[in-house]
Protein backbone atom coordinates (compact mmCIF):
# COMPACT_ATOMS: atom_id res chain seq x y z
CA UNK A 1 0.00 0.00 0.00
CA UNK A 2 1.17 3.47 -0.84
CA UNK A 3 2.07 5.67 2.15
CA UNK A 4 -0.43 8.35 1.20
CA UNK A 5 -3.22 5.76 1.15
CA UNK A 6 -2.23 4.69 4.66
CA UNK A 7 -2.22 8.31 5.77
CA UNK A 8 -5.72 8.68 4.36
CA UNK A 9 -6.92 5.58 6.21
CA UNK A 10 -5.44 6.88 9.46
CA UNK A 11 -7.18 10.20 9.02
CA UNK A 12 -10.50 8.64 8.04
CA UNK A 13 -10.46 6.18 10.93
CA UNK A 14 -9.82 8.95 13.42
CA UNK A 15 -12.61 11.05 11.92
CA UNK A 16 -15.00 8.14 12.08
CA UNK A 17 -14.10 7.45 15.71
CA UNK A 18 -15.06 11.02 16.57
CA UNK A 19 -18.24 10.94 14.52
CA UNK A 20 -19.38 7.79 16.31
CA UNK A 21 -19.48 9.68 19.60
CA UNK A 22 -21.00 7.65 22.40
CA UNK A 23 -20.50 4.33 20.69
CA UNK A 24 -16.79 5.04 20.66
CA UNK A 25 -16.89 5.98 24.32
CA UNK A 26 -18.62 2.68 25.11
CA UNK A 27 -16.04 0.67 23.17
CA UNK A 28 -13.16 2.54 24.78
CA UNK A 29 -14.66 1.90 28.23
CA UNK A 30 -14.89 -1.82 27.52
CA UNK A 31 -11.19 -1.84 26.70
CA UNK A 32 -10.37 0.29 29.73
CA UNK A 33 -12.04 -2.07 32.20
CA UNK A 34 -10.39 -5.11 30.67
CA UNK A 35 -6.92 -3.65 30.46
CA UNK A 36 -7.16 -2.36 34.00
CA UNK A 37 -7.65 -5.93 35.21
CA UNK A 38 -5.06 -7.29 32.79
CA UNK A 39 -2.54 -4.68 33.91
CA UNK A 40 -3.01 -5.44 37.59
CA UNK A 41 -2.76 -9.16 36.94
CA UNK A 42 0.35 -8.79 34.86
CA UNK A 43 2.12 -6.72 37.49
CA UNK A 44 1.08 -9.20 40.16
CA UNK A 45 2.00 -12.33 38.25
CA UNK A 46 5.36 -11.08 37.13
CA UNK A 47 6.32 -10.12 40.67
CA UNK A 48 5.06 -13.37 42.13
CA UNK A 49 7.15 -15.24 39.65
CA UNK A 50 10.17 -13.03 40.37
CA UNK A 51 9.94 -13.55 44.12
CA UNK A 52 9.36 -17.25 43.77
CA UNK A 53 12.59 -17.50 41.78
CA UNK A 54 14.34 -15.53 44.49
CA UNK A 55 12.95 -17.82 47.16
CA UNK A 56 13.87 -20.82 45.11
CA UNK A 57 17.45 -19.64 44.86
CA UNK A 58 17.39 -18.90 48.54
CA UNK A 59 16.61 -22.42 49.57
CA UNK A 60 19.77 -23.74 51.10
CA UNK A 61 20.81 -26.60 53.32
CA UNK A 62 21.65 -25.84 56.91
CA UNK A 63 24.04 -28.36 58.36
CA UNK A 64 24.11 -28.14 62.18
CA UNK A 65 27.37 -29.25 63.77
CA UNK A 66 27.33 -31.32 66.99
CA UNK A 67 28.08 -29.15 69.97
CA UNK A 68 31.57 -29.67 71.26
CA UNK A 69 33.03 -30.59 67.92
CA UNK A 70 36.64 -29.46 67.64
CA UNK A 71 37.81 -26.86 65.15
CA UNK A 72 39.92 -29.38 63.24
CA UNK A 73 36.98 -31.75 62.97
CA UNK A 74 34.83 -28.91 61.71
CA UNK A 75 37.40 -28.13 59.03
CA UNK A 76 37.37 -31.76 57.95
CA UNK A 77 33.57 -31.75 57.86
CA UNK A 78 33.57 -28.63 55.69
CA UNK A 79 35.81 -30.40 53.18
CA UNK A 80 33.50 -33.40 53.14
CA UNK A 81 30.44 -31.23 52.53
CA UNK A 82 32.22 -29.41 49.74
CA UNK A 83 32.98 -32.74 48.13
CA UNK A 84 29.31 -33.71 47.92
CA UNK A 85 27.80 -33.60 44.41
CA UNK A 86 25.87 -30.45 43.44
CA UNK A 87 27.29 -28.32 46.21
CA UNK A 88 28.14 -24.81 45.09
CA UNK A 89 29.31 -22.92 48.15
CA UNK A 90 29.69 -23.64 51.82
CA UNK A 91 29.60 -20.86 54.40
CA UNK A 92 30.41 -21.26 58.07
CA UNK A 93 28.49 -19.43 60.74
CA UNK A 94 29.33 -19.82 64.37
CA UNK A 95 26.64 -20.13 67.01
CA UNK A 96 27.50 -16.62 68.14
CA UNK A 97 26.83 -15.05 64.75
CA UNK A 98 23.61 -17.03 64.51
CA UNK A 99 22.47 -15.63 67.85
CA UNK A 100 23.44 -12.11 66.82
CA UNK A 101 21.17 -12.41 63.79
CA UNK A 102 18.31 -13.48 66.00
CA UNK A 103 18.93 -10.65 68.42
CA UNK A 104 19.04 -8.31 65.44
CA UNK A 105 15.67 -9.32 64.09
CA UNK A 106 13.71 -10.47 67.16
CA UNK A 107 14.95 -8.25 69.96
CA UNK A 108 17.33 -7.96 72.83
CA UNK A 109 15.53 -10.38 75.15
CA UNK A 110 17.44 -13.12 73.31
CA UNK A 111 20.67 -11.62 74.63
CA UNK A 112 20.33 -13.69 77.78
CA UNK A 113 21.47 -16.68 75.79
CA UNK A 114 24.83 -15.05 75.10
CA UNK A 115 28.14 -16.65 75.85
CA UNK A 116 28.12 -20.16 77.35
CA UNK A 117 24.33 -20.21 77.51
CA UNK A 118 24.09 -20.08 73.77
CA UNK A 119 21.84 -23.02 72.86
CA UNK A 120 22.60 -22.78 69.16
CA UNK A 121 24.93 -24.88 67.07
CA UNK A 122 27.59 -23.87 64.67
CA UNK A 123 26.19 -24.10 61.17
CA UNK A 124 27.37 -24.69 57.64
CA UNK A 125 25.18 -22.90 55.10
CA UNK A 126 25.29 -24.92 51.89
CA UNK A 127 24.15 -23.48 48.57
CA UNK A 128 23.46 -26.05 45.89
CA UNK A 129 23.92 -25.71 42.17
CA UNK A 130 20.19 -26.04 41.60
CA UNK A 131 17.26 -25.77 43.98
CA UNK A 132 16.10 -29.34 43.34
CA UNK A 133 19.36 -30.79 44.67
CA UNK A 134 18.79 -29.39 48.15
CA UNK A 135 16.93 -32.44 49.42
CA UNK A 136 19.61 -34.86 48.27
CA UNK A 137 22.44 -32.77 49.64
CA UNK A 138 20.67 -32.48 52.98
CA UNK A 139 20.21 -36.24 53.20
CA UNK A 140 23.83 -36.92 52.36
CA UNK A 141 25.09 -34.30 54.79
CA UNK A 142 22.96 -35.83 57.53
CA UNK A 143 25.04 -39.03 57.35
CA UNK A 144 28.38 -37.27 57.83
CA UNK A 145 30.22 -37.42 61.15
CA UNK A 146 29.67 -34.64 63.71
CA UNK A 147 26.49 -33.56 62.04
CA UNK A 148 23.60 -33.20 64.44
CA UNK A 149 21.06 -32.31 61.80
CA UNK A 150 20.81 -31.18 58.19
CA UNK A 151 17.65 -29.35 57.17
CA UNK A 152 16.56 -27.63 53.99
CA UNK A 153 13.38 -25.78 54.88
CA UNK A 154 11.83 -28.26 52.50
CA UNK A 155 8.17 -28.34 53.38
CA UNK A 156 7.78 -24.55 53.53
CA UNK A 157 9.57 -24.14 50.22
CA UNK A 158 7.53 -26.88 48.63
CA UNK A 159 4.31 -25.33 49.85
CA UNK A 160 5.36 -21.95 48.56
CA UNK A 161 6.24 -23.32 45.14
CA UNK A 162 2.87 -25.00 44.94
CA UNK A 163 1.04 -21.80 45.87
CA UNK A 164 3.00 -19.76 43.37
CA UNK A 165 2.28 -22.35 40.71
CA UNK A 166 -1.44 -22.22 41.42
CA UNK A 167 -1.50 -18.42 41.42
CA UNK A 168 0.29 -18.33 38.11
CA UNK A 169 -1.86 -20.94 36.45
CA UNK A 170 -5.14 -19.30 37.52
CA UNK A 171 -3.80 -15.84 36.81
CA UNK A 172 -2.76 -16.68 33.27
CA UNK A 173 -6.04 -18.50 32.64
CA UNK A 174 -8.04 -15.59 33.98
CA UNK A 175 -6.08 -13.08 31.92
CA UNK A 176 -6.68 -15.05 28.71
CA UNK A 177 -10.36 -15.27 29.55
CA UNK A 178 -10.44 -11.51 30.10
CA UNK A 179 -8.89 -10.88 26.72
CA UNK A 180 -11.51 -13.05 25.03
CA UNK A 181 -14.26 -11.19 26.82
CA UNK A 182 -12.70 -7.92 25.70
CA UNK A 183 -12.59 -8.94 22.05
CA UNK A 184 -16.20 -10.04 22.33
CA UNK A 185 -17.28 -6.80 24.00
CA UNK A 186 -15.45 -4.64 21.52
CA UNK A 187 -16.64 -6.56 18.50
CA UNK A 188 -20.19 -6.20 19.77
CA UNK A 189 -19.88 -2.50 20.39
CA UNK A 190 -18.25 -1.93 17.04
CA UNK A 191 -20.78 -4.19 15.37
CA UNK A 192 -23.51 -1.72 16.26
CA UNK A 193 -21.63 1.13 14.62
CA UNK A 194 -20.89 -1.06 11.62
CA UNK A 195 -24.47 -2.28 11.40
CA UNK A 196 -25.61 1.30 11.06
CA UNK A 197 -23.11 1.63 8.27
CA UNK A 198 -23.89 -1.58 6.40
CA UNK A 199 -25.45 0.47 3.58
CA UNK A 200 -22.36 2.58 3.43
CA UNK A 201 -20.14 -0.46 3.13
CA UNK A 202 -22.41 -1.68 0.33
CA UNK A 203 -21.94 1.60 -1.55
CA UNK A 204 -18.19 1.47 -1.05
CA UNK A 205 -18.16 -1.93 -2.69
CA UNK A 206 -20.34 -0.72 -5.56
CA UNK A 207 -17.91 2.04 -6.44
CA UNK A 208 -15.11 -0.50 -6.69
CA UNK A 209 -13.48 -0.53 -3.25
CA UNK A 210 -11.70 -3.77 -2.43
CA UNK A 211 -12.48 -5.51 0.82
CA UNK A 212 -9.11 -4.66 2.26
CA UNK A 213 -9.55 -0.99 1.36
CA UNK A 214 -12.89 -0.97 3.18
CA UNK A 215 -11.51 -2.92 6.11
CA UNK A 216 -8.53 -0.68 6.88
CA UNK A 217 -10.36 2.32 8.35
CA UNK A 218 -12.48 0.01 10.52
CA UNK A 219 -9.43 -1.91 11.66
CA UNK A 220 -7.63 1.31 12.49
CA UNK A 221 -10.70 2.65 14.26
CA UNK A 222 -10.58 -0.46 16.44
CA UNK A 223 -6.89 0.08 17.03
CA UNK A 224 -7.48 3.67 18.12
CA UNK A 225 -10.21 2.42 20.45
CA UNK A 226 -7.77 -0.04 21.98
CA UNK A 227 -5.03 2.54 22.32
CA UNK A 228 -7.34 5.08 23.97
CA UNK A 229 -8.67 2.34 26.22
CA UNK A 230 -5.17 1.56 27.43
CA UNK A 231 -4.43 5.10 28.67
CA UNK A 232 -6.29 5.01 31.98
CA UNK A 233 -5.09 1.48 32.88
CA UNK A 234 -1.51 2.61 32.18
CA UNK A 235 -1.89 5.57 34.46
CA UNK A 236 -3.54 3.57 37.25
CA UNK A 237 -1.02 0.74 37.08
CA UNK A 238 1.92 3.17 36.96
CA UNK A 239 0.77 5.12 39.98
CA UNK A 240 -0.48 2.08 41.88
CA UNK A 241 2.68 0.09 41.35
CA UNK A 242 4.91 3.02 42.26
CA UNK A 243 3.04 3.35 45.57
CA UNK A 244 3.22 -0.38 46.27
CA UNK A 245 6.89 -0.41 45.40
CA UNK A 246 7.66 2.56 47.61
CA UNK A 247 5.94 0.91 50.61
CA UNK A 248 6.38 -2.83 50.18
CA UNK A 249 9.69 -2.45 48.43
CA UNK A 250 11.60 -1.84 51.67
CA UNK A 251 9.96 -4.64 53.65
CA UNK A 252 10.65 -7.21 51.00
CA UNK A 253 14.18 -5.96 50.52
CA UNK A 254 14.87 -6.52 54.22
CA UNK A 255 13.98 -10.19 53.73
CA UNK A 256 16.36 -10.41 50.82
CA UNK A 257 13.65 -10.31 48.19
CA UNK A 258 12.80 -7.52 45.80
CA UNK A 259 9.99 -6.44 43.49
CA UNK A 260 10.76 -5.25 39.96
CA UNK A 261 12.13 -1.71 40.24
CA UNK A 262 9.58 0.74 38.75
CA UNK A 263 11.85 1.51 35.80
CA UNK A 264 12.03 -0.07 33.26
CA UNK A 265 9.33 -2.47 34.51
CA UNK A 266 6.49 0.04 34.21
CA UNK A 267 7.69 1.19 30.81
CA UNK A 268 7.44 -2.32 29.41
CA UNK A 269 4.16 -2.97 31.17
CA UNK A 270 2.73 0.18 29.54
CA UNK A 271 4.02 -0.88 26.15
CA UNK A 272 2.43 -4.30 26.66
CA UNK A 273 -0.91 -2.75 27.68
CA UNK A 274 -0.94 -0.45 24.65
CA UNK A 275 -0.04 -3.35 22.36
CA UNK A 276 -2.73 -5.61 23.83
CA UNK A 277 -5.27 -2.77 23.54
CA UNK A 278 -4.43 -2.15 19.91
CA UNK A 279 -4.55 -5.83 19.06
CA UNK A 280 -7.87 -6.59 20.76
CA UNK A 281 -9.39 -3.41 19.31
CA UNK A 282 -8.33 -4.21 15.77
CA UNK A 283 -9.31 -7.85 16.17
CA UNK A 284 -12.70 -6.92 17.58
CA UNK A 285 -13.56 -4.69 14.66
CA UNK A 286 -12.33 -7.12 12.02
CA UNK A 287 -14.35 -9.92 13.58
CA UNK A 288 -17.51 -7.86 13.62
CA UNK A 289 -17.33 -6.62 10.04
CA UNK A 290 -16.46 -9.91 8.38
CA UNK A 291 -19.98 -10.71 7.29
CA UNK A 292 -20.50 -7.36 5.58
CA UNK A 293 -17.68 -8.02 3.19
CA UNK A 294 -19.17 -10.88 1.25
CA UNK A 295 -19.52 -9.91 -2.39
Amino acid at each position, binding site marked *: *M*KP*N*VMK*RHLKDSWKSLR*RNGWMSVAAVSAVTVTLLLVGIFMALLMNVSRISTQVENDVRVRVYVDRGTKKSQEAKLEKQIKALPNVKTVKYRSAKTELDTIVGSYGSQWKMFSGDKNPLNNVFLVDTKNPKATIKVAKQAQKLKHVSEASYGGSTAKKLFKTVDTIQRWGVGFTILLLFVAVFLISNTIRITILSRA*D*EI*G*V*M*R*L*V*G*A*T*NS*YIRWPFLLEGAWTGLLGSLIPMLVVDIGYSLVYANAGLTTAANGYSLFPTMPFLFWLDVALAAIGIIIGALGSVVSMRRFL*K*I
Partner: protein
Amino acid sequence: MIQMKNVMMKYDNGVVAMKDLNLTVDPGEFVYVIGPSGAGKSTFIKMLYHELTPSEGDIVINNYDFKTMKPSEVPYMRRLIGIVFQDFKLLPRLTVYENVAYAMQVIETPDKDIRPRVLEVLKLVGLEQKLRRFPSELSGGEQQRVSIARAIVNKPQVVIADEPTGNLDPETAEGIMEILEKVHANGTTVIMATHNQQMVDEHKHRVLEIAGGRLVRDEKEGSYDSEA
Protein backbone atom coordinates in the same frame (compact mmCIF):
# COMPACT_ATOMS: atom_id res chain seq x y z
CA MET B 1 -17.74 -4.78 -24.91
CA ILE B 2 -20.65 -6.30 -23.01
CA GLN B 3 -22.14 -9.69 -23.77
CA MET B 4 -25.13 -11.46 -22.21
CA LYS B 5 -25.80 -15.08 -23.10
CA ASN B 6 -29.06 -16.87 -22.30
CA VAL B 7 -29.42 -14.90 -19.09
CA MET B 8 -32.23 -15.87 -16.73
CA MET B 9 -32.87 -14.22 -13.39
CA LYS B 10 -35.09 -15.77 -10.77
CA TYR B 11 -35.41 -14.02 -7.40
CA ASP B 12 -35.39 -16.04 -4.20
CA ASN B 13 -39.17 -15.65 -3.89
CA GLY B 14 -39.64 -17.37 -7.26
CA VAL B 15 -40.29 -14.27 -9.41
CA VAL B 16 -38.65 -14.72 -12.80
CA ALA B 17 -37.62 -11.14 -13.63
CA MET B 18 -35.57 -11.90 -16.75
CA LYS B 19 -35.36 -14.75 -19.22
CA ASP B 20 -33.73 -15.74 -22.53
CA LEU B 21 -31.66 -12.59 -22.66
CA ASN B 22 -29.05 -12.51 -25.47
CA LEU B 23 -27.33 -9.26 -26.19
CA THR B 24 -24.13 -7.56 -27.28
CA VAL B 25 -23.23 -3.92 -26.63
CA ASP B 26 -20.21 -2.55 -28.50
CA PRO B 27 -17.77 0.00 -27.09
CA GLY B 28 -18.97 3.57 -27.48
CA GLU B 29 -22.65 2.74 -27.94
CA PHE B 30 -25.48 4.64 -26.25
CA VAL B 31 -28.26 2.27 -25.24
CA TYR B 32 -31.67 2.97 -23.68
CA VAL B 33 -33.37 0.25 -21.69
CA ILE B 34 -37.08 0.99 -21.62
CA GLY B 35 -40.25 -0.74 -20.48
CA PRO B 36 -43.11 -0.31 -18.03
CA SER B 37 -42.62 -0.34 -14.30
CA GLY B 38 -41.80 -3.83 -13.09
CA ALA B 39 -40.62 -4.93 -16.52
CA GLY B 40 -37.16 -5.80 -15.23
CA LYS B 41 -35.03 -2.77 -16.13
CA SER B 42 -33.38 -2.46 -12.72
CA THR B 43 -32.85 -6.20 -12.66
CA PHE B 44 -31.05 -5.93 -15.98
CA ILE B 45 -28.86 -3.06 -14.74
CA LYS B 46 -28.04 -4.75 -11.41
CA MET B 47 -26.87 -7.87 -13.19
CA LEU B 48 -24.44 -5.76 -15.23
CA TYR B 49 -22.55 -4.54 -12.18
CA HIS B 50 -22.85 -7.86 -10.41
CA GLU B 51 -25.13 -6.85 -7.59
CA LEU B 52 -27.36 -9.66 -8.82
CA THR B 53 -25.98 -12.93 -10.14
CA PRO B 54 -27.99 -14.49 -12.98
CA SER B 55 -29.60 -17.81 -12.10
CA GLU B 56 -28.67 -19.09 -15.54
CA GLY B 57 -26.55 -17.91 -18.43
CA ASP B 58 -23.42 -15.76 -18.44
CA ILE B 59 -22.37 -12.11 -18.67
CA VAL B 60 -18.99 -10.95 -19.96
CA ILE B 61 -17.66 -7.39 -19.66
CA ASN B 62 -14.29 -6.86 -21.34
CA ASN B 63 -12.24 -9.79 -20.13
CA TYR B 64 -14.26 -10.35 -16.97
CA ASP B 65 -16.40 -13.46 -17.40
CA PHE B 66 -18.85 -13.31 -14.47
CA LYS B 67 -19.08 -17.09 -14.29
CA THR B 68 -15.38 -17.65 -13.78
CA MET B 69 -14.19 -14.46 -12.09
CA LYS B 70 -13.08 -14.67 -8.48
CA PRO B 71 -14.85 -12.61 -5.79
CA SER B 72 -11.64 -10.66 -5.34
CA GLU B 73 -11.86 -9.53 -8.98
CA VAL B 74 -15.32 -7.99 -8.60
CA PRO B 75 -14.05 -4.58 -7.35
CA TYR B 76 -11.70 -4.36 -10.33
CA MET B 77 -14.48 -5.27 -12.76
CA ARG B 78 -16.62 -2.53 -11.20
CA ARG B 79 -13.92 0.03 -11.83
CA LEU B 80 -14.58 -0.35 -15.56
CA ILE B 81 -18.12 0.84 -14.87
CA GLY B 82 -19.49 4.07 -13.47
CA ILE B 83 -22.89 3.51 -11.91
CA VAL B 84 -25.66 6.07 -11.43
CA PHE B 85 -28.13 4.46 -9.05
CA GLN B 86 -31.88 4.90 -9.12
CA ASP B 87 -31.66 5.89 -5.44
CA PHE B 88 -28.32 7.77 -5.79
CA LYS B 89 -26.54 5.80 -3.02
CA LEU B 90 -24.41 8.69 -1.83
CA LEU B 91 -22.44 8.27 1.38
CA PRO B 92 -24.47 10.34 3.88
CA ARG B 93 -21.53 11.13 6.14
CA LEU B 94 -19.41 12.60 3.37
CA THR B 95 -19.75 15.99 1.70
CA VAL B 96 -20.40 16.42 -2.03
CA TYR B 97 -16.69 16.83 -2.63
CA GLU B 98 -15.79 13.84 -0.44
CA ASN B 99 -18.38 11.62 -2.10
CA VAL B 100 -16.85 12.17 -5.51
CA ALA B 101 -13.28 12.08 -4.22
CA TYR B 102 -14.01 8.77 -2.47
CA ALA B 103 -14.44 7.00 -5.79
CA MET B 104 -10.95 8.16 -6.75
CA GLN B 105 -9.40 7.33 -3.38
CA VAL B 106 -10.72 3.80 -3.59
CA ILE B 107 -8.64 3.11 -6.67
CA GLU B 108 -5.61 4.62 -4.90
CA THR B 109 -5.27 7.74 -6.99
CA PRO B 110 -2.48 10.01 -5.70
CA ASP B 111 -3.83 12.90 -3.62
CA LYS B 112 -2.52 15.60 -5.93
CA ASP B 113 -4.52 14.23 -8.89
CA ILE B 114 -7.78 13.98 -6.96
CA ARG B 115 -8.64 17.60 -6.28
CA PRO B 116 -8.39 18.98 -9.83
CA ARG B 117 -10.37 16.09 -11.31
CA VAL B 118 -13.14 16.26 -8.67
CA LEU B 119 -13.52 20.00 -9.24
CA GLU B 120 -13.60 19.40 -12.99
CA VAL B 121 -16.49 16.91 -12.87
CA LEU B 122 -18.40 18.89 -10.26
CA LYS B 123 -18.17 21.85 -12.58
CA LEU B 124 -19.40 19.68 -15.44
CA VAL B 125 -22.52 18.78 -13.45
CA GLY B 126 -22.89 22.37 -12.22
CA LEU B 127 -22.26 21.78 -8.50
CA GLU B 128 -18.98 23.61 -8.03
CA GLN B 129 -20.74 25.96 -5.57
CA LYS B 130 -21.91 23.18 -3.25
CA LEU B 131 -18.75 21.22 -2.48
CA ARG B 132 -19.17 21.29 1.28
CA ARG B 133 -22.82 20.35 1.45
CA PHE B 134 -23.91 16.97 2.74
CA PRO B 135 -26.29 14.88 0.57
CA SER B 136 -29.14 15.56 2.99
CA GLU B 137 -28.75 19.27 2.23
CA LEU B 138 -29.30 18.82 -1.52
CA SER B 139 -32.37 18.57 -3.74
CA GLY B 140 -33.11 15.31 -5.55
CA GLY B 141 -31.78 16.65 -8.84
CA GLU B 142 -28.59 17.84 -7.17
CA GLN B 143 -28.05 14.46 -5.53
CA GLN B 144 -28.61 12.86 -8.92
CA ARG B 145 -25.88 15.05 -10.37
CA VAL B 146 -23.44 14.20 -7.55
CA SER B 147 -24.16 10.57 -8.31
CA ILE B 148 -23.33 11.19 -11.98
CA ALA B 149 -20.16 13.09 -11.10
CA ARG B 150 -19.04 10.15 -8.98
CA ALA B 151 -19.87 7.70 -11.78
CA ILE B 152 -17.73 9.50 -14.36
CA VAL B 153 -14.89 10.81 -12.21
CA ASN B 154 -12.63 7.82 -12.90
CA LYS B 155 -13.30 7.96 -16.66
CA PRO B 156 -14.87 4.51 -16.79
CA GLN B 157 -15.33 2.63 -20.05
CA VAL B 158 -19.03 2.16 -19.37
CA VAL B 159 -21.54 4.38 -17.57
CA ILE B 160 -24.67 2.62 -16.38
CA ALA B 161 -27.56 4.77 -15.20
CA ASP B 162 -30.84 3.59 -13.70
CA GLU B 163 -33.53 6.24 -14.23
CA PRO B 164 -31.13 9.18 -13.99
CA THR B 165 -33.93 11.54 -14.94
CA GLY B 166 -36.68 9.96 -12.89
CA ASN B 167 -38.60 12.40 -10.66
CA LEU B 168 -36.92 15.42 -12.18
CA ASP B 169 -38.53 18.35 -13.96
CA PRO B 170 -38.01 18.35 -17.75
CA GLU B 171 -35.39 21.10 -17.63
CA THR B 172 -33.19 19.40 -15.03
CA ALA B 173 -33.69 16.09 -16.83
CA GLU B 174 -32.48 17.69 -20.03
CA GLY B 175 -29.40 19.00 -18.20
CA ILE B 176 -28.57 15.51 -16.99
CA MET B 177 -29.13 14.09 -20.45
CA GLU B 178 -26.67 16.59 -21.85
CA ILE B 179 -24.04 15.50 -19.36
CA LEU B 180 -24.49 11.90 -20.42
CA GLU B 181 -24.29 12.92 -24.09
CA LYS B 182 -20.98 14.67 -23.34
CA VAL B 183 -19.63 11.56 -21.65
CA HIS B 184 -20.76 9.50 -24.62
CA ALA B 185 -19.11 11.93 -27.04
CA ASN B 186 -15.81 11.17 -25.27
CA GLY B 187 -16.14 7.55 -26.33
CA THR B 188 -17.74 6.13 -23.18
CA THR B 189 -20.39 3.44 -23.52
CA VAL B 190 -23.65 4.58 -21.90
CA ILE B 191 -26.46 2.27 -20.81
CA MET B 192 -29.49 4.04 -19.39
CA ALA B 193 -32.74 2.65 -18.05
CA THR B 194 -35.56 5.14 -18.40
CA HIS B 195 -39.28 5.86 -18.46
CA ASN B 196 -38.76 9.20 -20.08
CA GLN B 197 -40.47 9.04 -23.47
CA GLN B 198 -39.56 12.57 -24.50
CA MET B 199 -35.87 11.97 -23.84
CA VAL B 200 -35.75 8.77 -25.85
CA ASP B 201 -37.55 10.40 -28.77
CA GLU B 202 -35.42 13.56 -28.79
CA HIS B 203 -32.00 12.01 -28.28
CA LYS B 204 -32.10 9.09 -30.68
CA HIS B 205 -30.07 6.05 -29.70
CA ARG B 206 -30.32 2.28 -29.65
CA VAL B 207 -33.44 1.15 -27.79
CA LEU B 208 -33.84 -2.10 -25.85
CA GLU B 209 -37.44 -2.64 -24.81
CA ILE B 210 -38.14 -5.05 -22.00
CA ALA B 211 -41.59 -6.34 -21.18
CA GLY B 212 -42.38 -8.99 -18.59
CA GLY B 213 -38.72 -9.94 -18.27
CA ARG B 214 -38.15 -10.48 -21.99
CA LEU B 215 -36.29 -8.42 -24.53
CA VAL B 216 -39.09 -7.58 -26.99
CA ARG B 217 -37.36 -4.97 -29.16
CA ASP B 218 -33.79 -4.03 -30.08
CA GLU B 219 -33.77 -1.09 -32.45
CA LYS B 220 -31.04 1.26 -33.66
CA GLU B 221 -32.10 4.92 -33.46
CA GLY B 222 -35.38 3.70 -32.04
CA SER B 223 -38.12 5.74 -30.45
CA TYR B 224 -40.05 5.05 -27.23
CA ASP B 225 -43.11 3.50 -28.86
CA SER B 226 -42.48 0.73 -31.33
CA GLU B 227 -45.09 1.97 -33.83
CA ALA B 228 -44.02 5.59 -33.92
